[in-house]
């Protein structure tokens, strides 16, 4: 643990032996955080790194003297900017929060009041603490919006939260935190809920704000690559205990503790998929699929088209990855494959046979051979059924052998001990639940497993283990996987083929290996460039290279390329006609008006 030497100025934040406890209902008090100590010097950014349940958010909130319902600051010393947080009364805390220390929450969509215009909420801290009169507060807010590179900074404040995108809201929330020019700003996983391409815009805005406003910060995150970009020093937490503390560079390059080493290893991208199967006939062949919602219009297309004219083959024994940002139609596509969301046009062939759009019309065999694994195991597993009962239900449903031995075999497949068979889902950890979720699909002896963001809600180490398991099963059982994700590292790591989806169109389809070989569709390139790297200084390099970008508010042209408004290399032609697909030397199929030499 680093100690300040006597000559250096006292730290702006000093936490000594902090203990936080919580209780569920009337149950006993259990420790959330024990004996945590750290210091943050003025102008420094400290990262609190940890997985879910490590107590990192509780510590961040404790710095503001706040504990969530049922929790309490049990012990320790908290000094923030000359205030002893634990001895302050309610009204002192009120004038401390928002003025001396500001908080940026994880989910900006939920942290803004849906019934008030954004400007009202942004200037509220300045008004509540009598720092600025209303008129000047509004002007200051507009200046901050400009600094955050928000579109139409003069009028965006009049909007309501639901009229802004997630990335915009996150930047508006940062403006709200900075309006009182606080000495300390807490960032609580501010970009976790965002797409990579949006995340980088927000990170860039934060970076600029840090440079211009010069506050001291605490950055809570689980993502080591973000730590590398944002923090000077880091504290690694596990189950409420400090594992390791040091400079960012040292933690990332020479982690001392086994847990930190594990965390760093899980965050390093590495190839898991070593043996690609020989090319075979497609097991599932999707041709010109159109899926949408709402009643069909005169031309036969749905009112809201989500997936537009997508053709993809999933070959036997291979993993096809689908990547794209939220709203690009990847979940709708997977729901159409599963038969939950009937398509409006196009066709699917499964094993040489046409596949009906509705699950009711599919044969029992077709249903059995294609299994869906949903993102959130908590929502899928029946909390009132034991693991054993859940699996037995699948086995009896498909007239398979439902003996205890068969259930043991399924649990073995997902590397779960048989002792868990009698447990209920709420008694399992997140990773165990996701394994049961996978086992539920595997129990049906499928040929194709559709995975919808199955690692998105998991911690890094747990997610890495699930990806390893997927690849083992692929080898052992010869399964085909359809892997939908927004995580480019995971995609590279496990897939044989990759499809990039943008606004319902497949803009690029290639082998995973070809992802490393230019040329690429401009959106693919943007995706690649947006994934933060583990090396410190990467973000500053990106900002220097590109300048601060404004997220576009333009709409896509009615006819033409849907990526055009965001495309840095768009030409006049892009607005007129939809792009055709051509094949690059690497084998990649790219849908773009530009040619290989322009895109390299």
């Amino acid at each position: 643990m680093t100690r300040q030497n006597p000559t250096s100025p006292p730290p702006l934040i000093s936490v000594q032996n902090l203990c936080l406890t919580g209780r569920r209902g009337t149950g006993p008090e259990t420790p959330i955080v024990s004996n945590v100590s750290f210091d943050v010097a003025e102008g420094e950014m400290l990262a609190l790194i940890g997985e879910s349940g490590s107590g990192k958010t509780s510590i961040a909130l404790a710095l503001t003297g706040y504990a969530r319902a049922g929790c309490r600051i049990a012990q320790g010393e908290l000094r923030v900017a000359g205030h002893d947080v634990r001895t302050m009364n309610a009204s002192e805390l009120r004038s401390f929060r928002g003025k001396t220390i500001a908080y940026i929450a994880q989910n900006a969509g939920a942290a803004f009041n849906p019934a008030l215009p954004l400007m009202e909420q942004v200037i509220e801290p300045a008004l509540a603490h009598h720092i600025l009169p209303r008129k000047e507060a509004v002007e200051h807010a507009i200046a901050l919006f400009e600094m955050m590179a928000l579109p139409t900074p003069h009028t965006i404040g009049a909007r309501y939260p639901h009229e802004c995108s997630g990335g915009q809201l996150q930047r508006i929330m940062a403006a709200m935190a900075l309006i009182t020019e606080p000495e300390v700003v807490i960032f609580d996983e501010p970009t976790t809920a965002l797409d990579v391409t949006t995340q980088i815009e927000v990170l860039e805005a934060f970076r600029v704000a840090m440079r211009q406003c010069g506050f001291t910060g605490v950055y809570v995150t689980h993502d080591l690559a973000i730590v590398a970009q944002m923090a000077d020093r880091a504290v690694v937490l596990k189950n409420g205990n400090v594992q390791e503390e040091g400079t960012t560079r040292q933690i990332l390059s020479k982690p001392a503790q086994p847990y930190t080493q594990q965390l760093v290893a899980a965050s390093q991208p590495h190839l898991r998929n070593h043996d690609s199967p020989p090319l075979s006939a497609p097991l599932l062949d999707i041709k010109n699929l159109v899926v949408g919602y709402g009643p069909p219009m005169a031309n036969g297309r749905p009112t809201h088209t989500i997936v537009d004219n997508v053709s993809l083959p999933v070959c036997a024994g291979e993993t096809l990855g689908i990547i794209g940002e939220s709203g690009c139609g990847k979940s709708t596509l997977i729901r159409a494959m599963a038969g939950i969301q009937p398509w409006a046009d196009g066709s699917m062939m499964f094993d040489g046979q046409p596949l009906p759009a509705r699950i009711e019309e599919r044969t029992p065999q077709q249903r059995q051979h294609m299994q869906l694994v949903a993102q959130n195991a908590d929502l899928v597993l029946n909390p009132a059924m034991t693991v054993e009962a859940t699996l037995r239900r699948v086995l009896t449903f498909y007239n398979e052998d439902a003996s205890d031995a068969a259930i043991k075999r399924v649990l073995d497949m997902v590397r779960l001990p048989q002792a868990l068979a009698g447990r209920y889902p709420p008694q399992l950890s997140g990773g165990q639940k996701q394994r049961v979720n996978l086992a539920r699909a595997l129990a049906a002896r499928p040929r194709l497993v559709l995975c919808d963001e199955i690692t998105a809600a998991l911690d890094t180490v747990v997610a890495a283990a699930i990806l390893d398991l997927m690849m083992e099963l692929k080898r052992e059982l010869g399964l085909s996987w359809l892997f939908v994700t927004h995580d480019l590292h995971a995609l590279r790591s496990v897939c044989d083929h990759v499809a990039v989806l943008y606004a319902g169109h497949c803009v690029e389809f290639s082998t995973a290996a070809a992802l490393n070989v230019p040329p690429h569709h401009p959106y693919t390139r943007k995706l690649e460039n947006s994934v933060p790297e583990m090396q410190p200084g990467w973000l500053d390099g990106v900002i220097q290279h590109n300048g601060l970008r404004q997220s576009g508010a333009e709409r896509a042209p009615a006819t033409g390329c849907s990526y055009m408004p965001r495309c840095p290399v768009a030409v006049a032609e892009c607005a007129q006609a939809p792009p055709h697909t051509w094949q690059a030397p690497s084998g990649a199929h790219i849908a773009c008006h530009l040619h290989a030499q322009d895109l390299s």
Partner: protein
Amino acid sequence: MTMTAKLGMAIARRLGASCVSLIFVVVAVFFITSALPGDVAQSLLGQAATSDSVAALRHSLRLDQPVILRFASWAGGLLRGDFGVSLVSHQSVMSMVHERLIHSLLLAGITTLFAVPMALALGTLSAIFRNTIFDRAVSLLTLCVVSVPEFLVATLAVLVFAVQLHLLPALASISDIHSIGSFLAAFSMPVATLGCVIVGQMARMTRAVMVNVLSSSWVEMAVLKGVSPTAIILRHVLPNVIAPLFNVMALSLSYLLGGVVIVESVFHYPGIASLMVDSVASRDIPLVQTCALIFCAAYLLLTTLADIVALFSTQERTRA
């Protein structure tokens, strides 16, 4: 389409739906009351009446006509504002109902004035101080009050305050109200009885609505911005709970309509509900129908009002 036009459309659609419901109510009230057992001619003439005289009376009251014809003439009358003539007193139903309705509205109004603020305050406070002794006490109390039927509350109140303690009159005679004292004497027991159930029910529902909003992350955010508790409730929470609270209020107040029947009978309060009870006893069908219609219309009015308030309170946000 502009925002106002959209709102206008939505309100018009809601009012249209209410009108359809009202037509259904008119039909249902008529046919249900005509299906009631008993015969006004028989009950007017008493046990000794000959079948001839009963038949003659039935003819003069047009009770021998087919139901459809009677419905047509009754519904036609309604359209002209003519609610018919009482079969028993031969007065126009309108004039009989008029004064009673004012009395009932007075009782309901006073109860509302007293019950709504109290329920909202209790519900909000127990949501703010949730899981404290105060919250549990309020929860237990409101549960008790909701579970005890009004007739028991009313009877016990009469037994304790009128019969045992001689503090209040057992009957609510509103004809001789001259002072605040006599006003309180007449109204305190009926209003308290009616208020009991409504306050209990409304406070519990208010608490549920408020707990839901208070545990949202934007309330936490406001706390972390250093906003005072009063400002959080008034500026942040209130705009978000207006619509659900109005629904809670409309549902609870419509319950008043049921409670008023019992309370008016127990305290002999000269309101519309006791008029209805009397008219049922004397098989005075036009009076029963009008009273039933008034109750249904009041219910419909309350729920429609709550929906329109909800439309107004969310209109700004749904302009996208």
